[in-house]
Structure formats: C-alpha cells, structure tokens
C-alpha cells in the first residue's frame, strides 16, 4: 500500500459570501495520476486554489503528513506542492528559460542543471525556444512551458489545471504522451480536466465533480462507461 500524499476531508471554500465547494473529500496517493473531471463552473479551479492556499478554506487538508491549511502559497510550494495554473499564468515578458528558472526558484540542492537536462529531454521544443519570450508562443508551447516550469521545482505532487484548454486535439495528444513519460519517472499528478477522455487516458483514478460536490469516484475502468460522467456535463435526459 503506497502512502497518501494529499488527503482532503470535509473541505468547504468559496469567494467571500459565495460558497463554491461543499464538504469535499479527496485523496491522492504517491505515484498515481488522479484526475478530477467536471463541466465549467463545477468548482474544479476553486478546489485547486484552495489546495495551493490562494483562497481561505475550512476542513482538513494534509500534504505529505503536514497540515496544509495554515500555509501560504509560497509555503505550499516550497514543500513540493506545485501547480500548473489554469491559463498557464506564465511570466509572459520573461524567456522560457527564465520561466523555468522561476520553477527552480527555491531549490538549493545543486541539481538544477540536471533538472534542466531532464526537463528539456521531456520537452525538446522548449530547448529550441529557451530564449523566446513565453508570452509570444503558441498555446500548446505555453502549456509545455508551464509544465516545464513546474517540473523544474522537483515537485512531490504536480497539480495541473485544465491542461487541454483551448488546445488542438493533436497537441493535447502530445501533452498526454509527455504526461505518461513523467508518470513513468514516478511523479504524482493531480490532473483537473474538462476533457474527460483525455484525462481518463492517462489517469489511474478519477473523481467527477458537479456543482461543488464529488458525485462519483473510482478507477478509470469503472468510470469510463459510467453515465454519471456524461450527465455531469450534459445533464440527465428527462
């Protein structure tokens, strides 16, 4: 039995007076890819903002044996919880290389050069583009840059928000392939996706979210043909 790296129980969060997440439970175990799927507005991004400590939340959240709630975003980051935020959120006026260096911002282990090589091996295109301004690249390249930046931090848990958003299917396929490679290197990933089958093609387990609540969870093999997934997006036929 592998250990749990992220455990969430009874999480409530929202913006000001407007609650978005209700009593949410979630677990990510070491070495697995867990995906969280659901339509727009289901609360997926809010969940990630709560996990990375940008917005206040109540309930319990434990990361790698440590209480996550009292931490600030920078604290969560330095403990190895690294997010690829929705919309990439690159530093657009900095080069690809500089963005990646920001990922290695807190590292003092001397392995940065080696990480560069490893990440460039995963994203050869980023090596070609390393002197380019991140803001001037195509959407797919920006997504790669954002993932490369995150990997430079040597994360214990990589959280990816809407990786496929606005990208052409062929590029999504490329990114999924890379994700499989990353996983092979033993990284733990929480993948939040709108594109259900993209998420399912790489994940071990999945959660289905609807209006701020988890409505289904289980291994991909069980969920792939579960009508609840379809209903979460298109609604049940009356």
């Amino acid at each position, binding site marked *: 039995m592998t250990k749990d790296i992220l455990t969430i129980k009874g999480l409530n969060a929202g913006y000001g007076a*407007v609650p978005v997440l209700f009593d949410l439970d979630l677990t990510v175990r070491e070495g697995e890819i867990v995906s969280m799927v659901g*339509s727009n507005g289901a609360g997926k991004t809010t969940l990630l903002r709560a996990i990375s400590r940008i917005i206040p939340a109540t309930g319990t959240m434990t990361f790698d044996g440590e209480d996550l709630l009292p931490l600030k975003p920078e604290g969560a980051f330095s403990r190895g919880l690294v997010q690829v935020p929705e919309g990439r959120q690159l530093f657009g006026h900095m080069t690809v290389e500089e963005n990646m260096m920001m990922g290695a911002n807190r590292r003092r282990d001397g392995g940065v050069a080696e990480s560069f090589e490893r990440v460039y091996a995963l994203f050869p295109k980023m090596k070609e583009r390393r002197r380019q301004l991140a803001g001037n690249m195509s959407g797919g390249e920006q997504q790669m840059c954002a993932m490369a930046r995150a990997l430079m931090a040597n994360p214990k848990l990589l959280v990816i928000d*809407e990786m496929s958003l*606005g990208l052409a299917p062929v590029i999504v396929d490329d990114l999924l392939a890379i994700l499989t490679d990353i996983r092979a290197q033993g990284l733990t990933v929480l993948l939040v996706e709108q*594109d259900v089958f*993209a998420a399912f093609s790489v994940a071990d387990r999945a959660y289905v979210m609807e209006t701020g609540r988890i409505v289904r969870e289980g291994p991909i093999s069980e969920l792939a043909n579960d009508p609840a997934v*379809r209903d979460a*997006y298109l*609604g049940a036929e*009356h």
Partner: protein
Amino acid sequence: MTQTAAKPGPKTVIEARGITKRFQGLVSVNAVSFSIAEDEILGVIGPNGAGKTTMVNMLSGTYTPNEGEILFEGTRINEVPTFRRAHMGIARTFQVMKPFPGMTALENVTVGALFGRDGGEKSMPAARERAREWLEFTGLGHRIDNPADSLGGPDRKRLEFAKALAMGPRLLLLDEVMAGLNPVEVDEVVDLIKKMRGKGIAMLVIEHVVKAIRSLSDRVMVLHHGEKIADGDPTAVLADPRVIEAYLGKRRT
C-alpha cells in the same frame, strides 16, 4: 444540419450574420450566424473558451466584430456604442454578478428602470415604481430594502434579472446566470426565465448547466473553438456526437 432561420411567424429581434472576432490573431468567434425572434429563447452552450462571452460582448456593444453584421430589429448596429444599444432595448447580465453594493435592492433595480430602453423612466418615483414591480416579479418583493451585498447567491441572480428586466428590453442576454447555484436553485431560476416568456422579449441564454438549457431553450446553439457546430432542437443537438465530443473529448483507447 444547421439551421439558421428562426421559426416562421414571430418577428426577428436580433440577427447575426457571420460575425467574427479576433484578438491579436487568435480567432475567438468565427463567422457565427443566428437569429432570435420575439418570445424565443436561444440557448448557447459550449466548453470553456468556446467564445460564448465574446459573442455576448459583441451583441451588447463591448466589442465590435471584425467581420459580419449585427442587425437589431433590422438595423445594423455594429458600431453603435453600448449605452445606445441599451436605449434600443438590449439588456444583459454579467458572468460575474456585480450589484451596486452600497445600494439597496430597490435602488439597484431603479438604475435599470432609469436608463434602459428609450433612455428609461425620467422621473424617480415612476422608476422606483417600475423597479418595485420587477422585484415582485422576480420574487424579491420582500427584500427590496436590503442592501444588495447582503443578498445570497440565488437572490443576487434574481436581482440581476430584475435590473435587466426593468430596462424594458427587447433582447435579453443572460450570461451564465446559474453559475454557483445548487440544483434546487437552478430549477428556481429556470422557472423564472420561463416566466419571462410571453412578454415579447427575445432571450439568449448562455449556460453550462446543460440540464437547464435543455429544459428552457426553444433552440440550442453549440459553440466550439469559436465556431458554431450545431444549432437546432435541444434534444437533437445534445445527442449530436460532435457536441458530445466537444464536451467530453475524443474517446481514446
């Protein structure tokens, strides 16, 4: 496959002919055409980033289309500024609700009554009276003197409706008014929208709660990557494999 013409009979309120909007080379909305008639509800769905809000912004006047034409009751309005479109009878709600926090619910709606179609009511008492009526209509009659920022989620939506309705619109653009509501509240809002039918208003409803769209739309239009991929009867559209794929993604094996 796609049908652009409205049902024959009622008068067409708004018509878009191949409208396109680009931002720095990226096409957000690509050659989309549609029309909405009086008392008709057009549901618009599509995954995140499909261009739905951009389209509303073109109709309301925040953006000007790069190509194509927007006709309101037969008049071309591409370059008409936002406030004048409001005077013509176009009202919208915003994805993020923005009540005027220091004002009461009544005052909020009064703003709508004071401006709006044909420049709105000129006198404050008349505007306040009109506002009161719409607050009753939307079910906020008991909360008219509450400050807007004390209202909870569903009541805020009602307030937003009341503000838009008080403008006396011919065309109502509803941008994700059900976001953040629980299923019971969604049903309440759906009922409210249905209740507005019959007042001669053309409605365009953007929604990601597909269940709601299905139950209230006369027609559904699906946008994906800025393009219209389907338009027609809700049940048929939602069964269209291309729509399902747009939402759920391609099945990979």
